[in-house]
């Protein structure tokens, strides 16, 4: 049986992308798999009684060492903010390439806590900062120092001790450019070093909380139970900074989605499924219910999605356990078709992710295909014709061409970069100033404009002839030739409409990171949790690959 890849016109809609969930392809899971046989070490832990100071953690294999350098600082409660405009954080981190010398640590002590206004060097790979969850951190310190474990109900509500508010890499603020390290086998996957940083930060938070508790009451204090540690992750507050990334990296976006779609296609094409695999799938679906019921949010929008998801996953589970026979031919195809007919987008994508769980032989080769050599596709094939271009646009952007951009509601918003923080923002074109400095992220509108221009031509021209008078459309001409080769490289939706929900774009990227428990705080920012349930560093050599569904 030959199953077709799913239609980009459906999958690449913002509401669908905003329903994606973590899977075996997610970067934090592939990071754990890649680094599980590396040697983990805490090289330095020089904190004062209050928990302020410096710590270094590392992963080592043969001659390669990656070191996380942590700087924990005192800040006042009123200075603590998750917003990108903050200038002070409870802790700041950088991942250093190699073993840092004293001189490096001194240099970084001056720069890392400054974050965006500090300067890093090519020896540093990623940069981040994090704030304590004040209500949780203090409760845990107090409990441990009194010799008791913290209240699990309270911990469940939050899920972490610290929240990162940005993780930077790839050349930002002087960090090493990706090209310097791209040939290293262990980081042949997107965002692997960012994942390493977050993972090691998680361990730092446990060590710090134990250290502070011990110093508060040396005689009575106990350590945080490793089982509790395991069920804590690292939080993250994410704003619009992530959104332009998926528009600005079309071939990378394609490769992420294409790998997921290819895995689904191959699984649907399996004629027979072993009992061991079908049981593993069923167990994951069953266990995953806890992930949904422990998913807390105040967002009405997300609550509705969670309730619908829970309802539909339960309905699916009943069908799976009471009516479905895995002995049938092509069982996963049948399940998928049932999901499409009977459940919501959020549930379809949730179960699609779980379908990948039993099939390492399908998923692992795809993990290696999720990066992209973007430069290779940058040149515009200017010897091709406007007739070719018109045909590509009509074939690849058919839904987008139906949007009427003369209507105010379809172009109500615009994307811009804030002068204060050099961060992306999203505002009302008709009520706010600055739309003349709009970023080139309204791809649907510009493709439509290009289409109209092409239709008005009297004869077919070569692209180089067309470009002479249409330089303003050059950026979308480039994209159209990319989408011709990469079907999932483009969001097939309007990114500037009145009803556009920017967090759908963030959710897509975060699901590929492996984030859980999306908690929107508005349509422009959300909180998430990473590595909740993940093995601790001392468990890495032998861990359960389905830990996500057992937290």
């Amino acid at each position: 049986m030959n199953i077709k890849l799913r239609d980009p016109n459906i999958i690449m809609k913002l509401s669908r992308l905003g329903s994606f969930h973590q899977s075996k392809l997610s970067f934090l899971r592939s990071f754990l798999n890649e680094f599980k046989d590396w040697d983990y070490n805490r090289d330095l832990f020089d904190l004062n009684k209050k928990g302020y100071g410096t710590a270094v953690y590392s992963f080592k294999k043969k001659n390669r060492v990656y070191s996380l350098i942590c700087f924990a600082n005192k800040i006042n409660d009123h200075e603590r903010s998750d917003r990108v405009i903050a200038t002070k954080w409870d802790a700041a981190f950088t991942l250093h390439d190699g073993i840092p010398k004293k001189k490096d640590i001194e240099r970084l002590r001056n720069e890392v806590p400054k974050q965006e206004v500090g300067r890093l060097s090519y020896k540093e790979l990623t940069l981040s900062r994090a704030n304590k969850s004040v209500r949780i951190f203090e409760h845990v310190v107090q409990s441990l120092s009194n010799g008791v474990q913290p209240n699990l109900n309270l911990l469940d509500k939050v899920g972490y001790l610290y929240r990162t508010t940005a993780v930077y890499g790839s050349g930002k603020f002087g960090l090493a450019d990706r090209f310097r390290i791209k040939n290293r086998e262990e980081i042949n996957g997107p965002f692997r070093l960012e994942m390493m940083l977050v993972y090691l930060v998680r361990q730092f938070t446990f060590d710090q909380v134990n250290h502070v508790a011990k110093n508060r009451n040396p005689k009575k204090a106990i350590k945080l139970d490793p089982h509790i540690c395991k069920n804590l992750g690292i939080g993250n507050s994410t704003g619009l900074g992530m959104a332009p990334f998926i528009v600005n990296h079309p071939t990378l976006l394609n490769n992420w989605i294409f790998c997921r779609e290819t895995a689904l296609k191959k699984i649907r094409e399996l004629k027979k499924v072993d009992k061991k695999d079908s049981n593993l799938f069923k167990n994951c679906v069953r266990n995953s219910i806890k992930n949904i019921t422990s998913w807390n949010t105040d967002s009405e929008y997300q609550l509705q999605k969670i309730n619908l998801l829970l309802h539909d996953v339960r309905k699916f589970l009943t069908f799976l356990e009471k009516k479905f026979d895995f002995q049938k031919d092509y069982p996963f195809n049948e399940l998928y078709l049932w999901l499409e007919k009977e459940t919501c987008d959020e549930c379809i994508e949730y179960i699609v992710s779980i379908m990948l769980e039993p099939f390492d032989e399908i998923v692992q080769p795809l993990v290696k295909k999720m990066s992209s050599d973007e430069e290779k596709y940058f040149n515009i094939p200017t010897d091709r014709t406007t007739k070719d271009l018109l045909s590509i646009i009509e074939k690849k952007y058919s839904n987008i061409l139906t949007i009427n951009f003369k209507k105010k509601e379809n172009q109500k918003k615009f994307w811009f970069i804030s002068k204060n923080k050099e961060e992306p923002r999203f505002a009302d074109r008709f009520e706010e100033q600055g739309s003349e400095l709009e970023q080139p992220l309204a791809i649907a509108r510009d493709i439509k404009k290009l289409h109209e221009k092409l239709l008005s031509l009297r004869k077919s021209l070569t692209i180089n002839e067309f470009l002479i008078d249409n330089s303003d459309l050059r950026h979308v001409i480039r994209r159209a030739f990319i989408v011709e080769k990469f079907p999932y490289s483009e969001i097939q939706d309007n990114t500037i409409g009145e009803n556009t929900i920017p967090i759908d774009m963030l959710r897509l990227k975060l699901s590929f990171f492996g984030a859980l428990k999306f908690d929107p705080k508005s349509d422009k920012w959300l909180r998430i949790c990473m590595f909740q349930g993940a093995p601790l560093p001392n468990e890495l050599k032998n861990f359960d690959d389905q830990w996500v569904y057992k937290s």
Partner: protein
Amino acid sequence: MKSLSEIETTSKRASKAIGFSWGVSEEVAKGIRLLELFGLPGIKNLNQYYKLINKKKFDNLSVINKNNKSNKSALCPINLGISFLDQIKKLESFKKITFSNIAYPILFIPFLSRSSEIIGKKILFKFDKNFFLFNFDVNIFSNLSKKKFPLIAKKIEISILDNKDSFTEREWKNLYKLSENTFVEETESLKKSAAGAGLTDND
């Protein structure tokens, strides 16, 4: 030290701010990244050029011919570069192309380097007493060692070089003969047993 990623992002934004379209700004940014990667003063010259661009008039040349003359003003290296890159498949047949007066010729260089990769041929860029040889966007060879780059190229000649050997047939044969010393002389027995294909082609 600035990373290449920072260099590319800032060059793109500055180019848009000066009045180029986003698409052209992306091309400029890639170019400046390339220059800096090769150790050439891209940021310095782009900065100087953008200071002048709105004060002084620069000519554009949309369609490139075999021989091209600018009017009174020097040619804009960015618009000329974009035209050259876009038309390279057509220009390939000219073999030799001449121009006069290109402002800030260093900013024209990345477009020639990328053009060399697109057509898979080396491109020789000569102006005044200077030359640059572009090898498929992999490297750039030049006789210009001065840190200060000329602000204008007056008489320019660009040659599209046919791929040909840089050595004589005799030199090749000598080296080939030496390489034969790694081969094993085949005996009758080896002829029968060591080859992958069958012994008859007519079975």
